[in-house]
């Protein structure tokens, strides 16, 4: 009832005290601005840091670990209810590192709806020969096209051309740190020794820079065929199968399923990188905590100003009541006042928050570790704006609630008599 009237009275009261109103609204604007900026920046940073690892990490890794046979012959022969065997110094059997039934597994993966894509990989331990010194390192045999599509491999190539690895046989892309240690330039030929003792010359066609220095000091990439040749293995030899799912959250479940189905070892991204999730969670939590604290402080500002306003407007409230406005009408008027401070302050806060984050988005941010990043990262998630506006309304509503209740209970007789 009478919504229009209540709004018009609220508006008149607000405008009559527009300076105080403005101060209250600026408080809300400030906190929403900071809330939006903080969250956009923090999550931008989170995404960047996570991306550093998570973008390049498969959701599921299928591999064969070298480990002792679970079914030791002694147990198979003598395991009874009355006997337990303690076996010490077990050695791993002559198990193979390659994935069995590679072709059959890929057939299944291709058909699986949940799978975004997969990329085979061979990991080979080698020594890079640098004169008299041997540097231990790893050559990853990869399919450049799949690897780029699924794990952004091409984005980390800072010099040279990634596709050359596929085109030129016996070519290699070195981590920047490794290349610096070996003192080689693009086009040079390096020597490496496999774990079996064979020496190979490979041509350097590019550098890559992942952002993780230690990683770049040991890693290098070559085509699958090249690494198979290095190891003297046939063309179906693959040690790792990296799977990317459509939904990262499904990884643990699918991983278990695959481990059983393919009878291999399988690891999901959550287990492999649990520390990142924790970090992300804590950073997000801090941003929300700071944002909400700011809002609560703004809420107290509104509370104070409304209390003051009610104190000043005792006469007005008494007259409204004497002329037929009920307590609940008076309450509504003050809640509308509080909510409009929250609404307009909040809207301005969203705009300023967007503006401020866009400005941060333009600030150059160059670091050797992150070749693809040029400016500070910002995440423009509309969710933050939604949360910001909802929170500004909720806090101002509660800030207005108590003063409004107080106003609604004012006894007009006391005020009118008091003169």
């Amino acid at each position, binding site marked *: *009832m*009478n919504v*229009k*009237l209540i709004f018009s*009275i609220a508006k*008149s*009261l607000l*405008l*009559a005290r527009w300076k105080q109103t403005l101060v209250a609204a600026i408080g809300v604007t400030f906190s929403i601005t900071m809330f939006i900026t903080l969250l956009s920046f923090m999550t931008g940073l989170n995404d960047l840091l996570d991306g550093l690892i998570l973008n390049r990490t498969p959701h599921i890794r299928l591999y064969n670990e070298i480990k002792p046979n679970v079914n030791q012959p002694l147990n198979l022969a003598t395991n009874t209810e009355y006997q337990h065997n303690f076996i010490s110094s077990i050695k791993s059997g002559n198990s193979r590192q390659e994935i069995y039934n590679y072709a059959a597994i890929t057939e299944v993966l291709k058909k699986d709806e949940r799978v975004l894509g997969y990329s085979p990989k061979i990991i080979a331990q080698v020594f890079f020969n640098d004169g008299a010194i041997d540097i231990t390192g790893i050559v990853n045999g990869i399919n450049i096209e799949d690897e780029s599509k699924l794990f952004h491999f091409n984005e980390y190539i800072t010099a040279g051309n990634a596709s050359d690895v596929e085109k030129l046989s016996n070519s290699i892309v070195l981590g920047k740190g490794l290349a610096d240690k070996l003192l080689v330039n693009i086009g040079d030929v390096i020597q490496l020794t496999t774990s079996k003792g064979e020496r190979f010359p490979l041509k350097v066609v590019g550098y890559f820079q992942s952002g993780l220095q230690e990683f770049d000091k040991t890693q290098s990439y070559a085509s699958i065929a090249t690494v198979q040749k290095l190891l003297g293995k046939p063309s179906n030899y693959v040690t790792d199968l990296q799977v990317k799912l459509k939904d990262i959250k499904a990884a643990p479940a699918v991983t278990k399923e695959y481990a059983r189905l393919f009878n291999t070892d399988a690891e999901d991204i959550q287990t492999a990188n649990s520390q990142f999730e924790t970090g992300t969670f804590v950073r997000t939590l801090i941003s929300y905590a700071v944002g909400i604290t700011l809002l609560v402080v703004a809420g107290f500002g509104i509370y104070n100003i409304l209390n003051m306003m009610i104190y000043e407007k005792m*006469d*007005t409230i*008494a*007259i*409204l*009541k*004497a*002329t*037929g*406005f*009920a*307590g*609940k*009408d008076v309450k509504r008027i003050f809640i509308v006042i509080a909510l409009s401070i929250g609404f307009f302050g909040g809207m301005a806060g969203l705009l300023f928050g967007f503006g401020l984050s866009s400005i941060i988005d333009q600030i150059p941010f160059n670091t050797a570790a992150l070749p693809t990043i040029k400016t500070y990262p910002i995440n423009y998630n509309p969710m933050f704006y939604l949360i910001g506006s909802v929170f500004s309304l909720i806090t101002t509503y509660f800030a207005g609630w108590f003063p409004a209740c107080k106003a609604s209970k004012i006894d*007009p*007789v006391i005020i*009118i*008599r008091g*003169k």
Partner: protein
Amino acid sequence: MSEIILEAKNICKDFHDPVTIRVLNNINFSINKGDFVSITGKSGCGKSTLLYILSTMDTDYEGELLIDNVSMNEKKEAQLAKVRNEKIGFVFQFHYLLNEFSVLRNVMLPGLKLGKYSEKEVEARAMDKLKMLDIGHLAQKSVNQISGGEKQRVAIARALINDPHIIMGDEPTGNLDKKNSEIVFDIFKKLAEEFNQTLLIVTHDQNFADRTHRTIEMEDGRILNSKANAFNS
């Protein structure tokens, strides 16, 4: 026998601060439609207290109050507010207009609250009331820009906006000079005699009281006497 608009039955009121004092003691009277009644008495005898009870603003009393033959005792706060809005126009000693609004808007507010007419109609009615009180030219002014006498006339216009059954005034001329008091009295008289408006006015201006139709005299929380005045003014 004409229609009873307001009836007080055995109304008593105590104040408990700091000790219990009986301020109103067994007040009984009734007001008929079209009556122009004044209440007089020494300062502190309980006139205002009585008027606040009669206007439904004060609910802390004993006895019964009937407006239009309906008891107010059982009504809730919101219902009483509705009664005040619809049936009672109140004029205070200090004009009590809202500074945040223009003169016209002040007059309109109770009408808008009633919601019986559209905003346009309420505005037209408010204009009519202002013109009737010869202050139509002040409609768009801010409350701070008009004189005390004019303010009291605006307050009367506001009291009239919903065509109330009764207008109550607590010393409405108490704060005005002779000339303005006279204007306000003439307005009340005109309302009573030309528009058959019921009026109940507290005053301690004996000259004012004598010229109303009936005067209720109070002393120490009781009604001393109630006498009809000669129609002489």
